[in-house]
């Protein structure tokens, strides 16, 4: 290998990489906001006895779980504008596609969690005079969140990594900046290694925290 390392350019382009990281983090946070809220609503809908509700939701979940995130993203970016005659930025489409993808996975996590809540809690809620809405908000949602938290975080950090795909639809995220700088400076090894390390530096502590959180939540919910 006769490649001469030169970290000078990386140092010079660090501010641009951090601008990219900021965009990546924004995408991740918005997608997680959608994934956490919409995912819960989907999970609730899936518990319904009405087929007209569960059917479309099943199709939605399976579609997003059984196709590559890349095609989902590209499909949103290129097809939604044509079908619905709207034009939204790649940034917005990226959030939407990643958010819906995450919600599909989170819905499954929520559903498993909701099913693990003892049925007697719902009897107790009725006996305490809580109505259906109050029961969902104050009894089911918090327990489902706590039970599903390890999976939700794992899914959420997965979306942080998947978000690198938005570079393909010209969103100036960390990946995009990395590729741009590496071709501009002809320093692919230094730049792309740095980019990978930045992704790692964010993901690793979070994934480490998951097992700790798992232990804590198990203890809290032990009966």
């Amino acid at each position, binding site marked *: 290998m006769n490649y001469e390392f030169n970290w000078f350019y990386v140092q010079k382009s660090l501010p641009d990489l951090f601008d990219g990281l900021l965009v990546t983090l924004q995408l991740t946070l918005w997608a997680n906001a959608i994934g956490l809220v919409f995912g819960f609503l989907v999970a609730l809908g899936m518990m319904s006895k009405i087929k007209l509700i569960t059917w479309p939701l099943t199709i939605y979940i399976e579609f997003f779980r059984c196709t590559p995130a890349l095609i989902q993203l590209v499909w949103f970016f290129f097809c939604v504008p044509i079908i619905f005659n709207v034009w939204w930025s790649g940034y917005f489409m990226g959030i939407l596609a990643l958010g819906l993808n995450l919600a599909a996975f989170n819905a499954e996590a929520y559903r498993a969690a909701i099913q693990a809540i*003892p049925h*007697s*809690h719902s*009897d*107790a809620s*009725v*006996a*305490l*005079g*809580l*109505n259906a809405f*109050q029961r969902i908000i*104050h*009894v089911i949602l*918090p*327990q489902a969140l*706590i039970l599903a938290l390890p999976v939700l975080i794992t899914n959420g950090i997965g979306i942080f990594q998947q978000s690198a795909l938005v570079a393909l639809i010209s969103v100036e995220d960390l990946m995009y900046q990395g590729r741009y700088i590496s071709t501009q400076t002809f320093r692919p090894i230094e730049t792309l290694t740095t980019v990978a390390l930045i992704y790692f530096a964010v993901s690793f502590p979070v994934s480490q925290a998951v097992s700790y959180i798992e232990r804590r939540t198990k*203890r*809290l*919910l*032990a*009966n």
Partner: protein
Amino acid sequence: MAFVEINGLVKRYGALSIFEGFDLKMEATDRLVLIGPSGCGKSTLLRCMMGLEDIAGGQISLGGKEYIEGAEAGKMRIDAKIQKDVGMVFQHYTLFPHLSVLGNLCLAPTRSRGMKKAIARDKAMELLQRFGLADRADFYPSQLSGGQKQRVAIARALMLDPKLMLFDEVTSALDPELVNEVENTMQDLANAGMPMMIVTHDMHFARNIATKVVFQERGKVIEAAAPDELFGNPQQERTRDFLRNVLHING
């Protein structure tokens, strides 16, 4: 009119019939203990009273008020308003694990009754004090013993000022050494004049706390009498059989 009147209650689970016209009366000064073989419908009766089950017919009144709504056969249910007047404690632990003891007590009053947080808190602390649980106020259910959990569950129900308390085998899931503290709490509550309907397999406790014991079998009341009479001098052959069996098992 009696404090609680159940007339002609009909309850079925699909093809399985539990009650075909069940009658029961209870006075406001009564503590009624329901005994009977497993599967005879004791829990079902309490669940119907609490409005947790659809019923197929009958009338239930509490404090002179009728609580049945929906005339459509098979789709009747106790009016949800009865939940304002009745409290229930279950066999299984039903404290919400994500809330502290105080949080469990204050949830329903603040959310469904619109009670101010500070007032609910004071009331909760007063109850916990009375139950000797004040130092557990900030504990989570996973940090409590089974007996403490059940006593907190009783306190949680009392937060809503029920006119009648239902207890469905609240000590059955407990280790033997924890049964006493829960039964003592119930006894204190009884001494304070709370009307109760109690399902228990503990005949000793039944005899102590009851003013009236009801022996039911296959969806019918076989015999109802004061505890000393029912345990000391049962009139029905089936009551005698049942008591002989349980007392033999209990030792």
